[in-house]
């Protein structure tokens, strides 16, 4: 749709028209702000409860990674490449493996991730259905942004729903 609009503007006489073809889906999937009745405050990106997620590289040993994860108070660790792209995840059981095993051998590859533009209620629904306590959030090119924690997400969703109900009720008063 936007290419047609861009050409139309040129036909009207605008000399410098740019077309952001990837559009607001791309914008939101990188955690950039959106406004409107279902803007950023209703999206996962506004509720990243942990941005300091423990991370490791493929070639590290479990001994090194376990120490770091425990120091950070976490029982999970994300495996990232130098560009910050999520390659795998080490859960509690994997982290408890033999000291000299490499991260690459122990990790679960390709963990499920969500984009920051996902609506919060959908993320909570997914965590409930799949019995997840956290959801990793990445940009659409796979870079880790942070973790959404279920307890905090459920609280935030209740608050959002209350605010929405209050706004509706105020709007319906004579």
């Amino acid at each position, binding site marked *: *749709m*936007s*290419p*047609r*609009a*861009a*050409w*139309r*503007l*040129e036909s*009207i*006489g*605008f*000399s*410098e*028209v*740019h*077309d*952001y*073809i*990837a*559009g*607001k*889906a*791309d*914008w*939101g999937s*990188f955690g*950039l*702000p*959106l*406004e*409107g*009745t*279902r*803007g950023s405050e209703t999206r996962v990106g506004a509720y990243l409860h942990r941005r300091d997620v423990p991370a490791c590289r493929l070639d590290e040993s479990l001994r090194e990674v376990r120490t770091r994860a425990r120091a950070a108070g976490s029982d999970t660790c994300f495996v990232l490449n130098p560009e910050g792209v999520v390659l795998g995840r080490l859960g509690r059981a994997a982290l408890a493996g033999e000291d000299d095993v490499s991260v690459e051998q122990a990790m679960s590859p390709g963990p499920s991730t969500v984009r920051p533009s996902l609506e919060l209620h959908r993320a909570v629904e997914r965590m409930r259905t799949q019995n997840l306590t956290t959801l990793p959030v990445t940009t659409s090119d796979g870079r880790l942004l942070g973790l959404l924690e279920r307890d905090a997400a459920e609280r935030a969703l209740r608050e959002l729903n209350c605010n929405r109900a209050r706004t509706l009720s105020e709007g319906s008063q004579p």
Partner: protein
Amino acid sequence: MPIPVGRDEVQRLLAEGAQLVEVLPQAEYEEQHLPGAINIPLKTLDAESARRLERGRPVIVYCHDYQ
């Protein structure tokens, strides 16, 4: 000829004063739009509706995605 741009370029152009236009229908714009964007739906885009834009400044148009 319209110039295709990516996210980084959009941010740079906006910082330099470009105008941002969402061309989706009004209901979709009201739900969610980029900060600072105005709404001129494609179906209403003509010389009259485009008078909301300044001709001397660059314009960036966008919709939802590659649709």
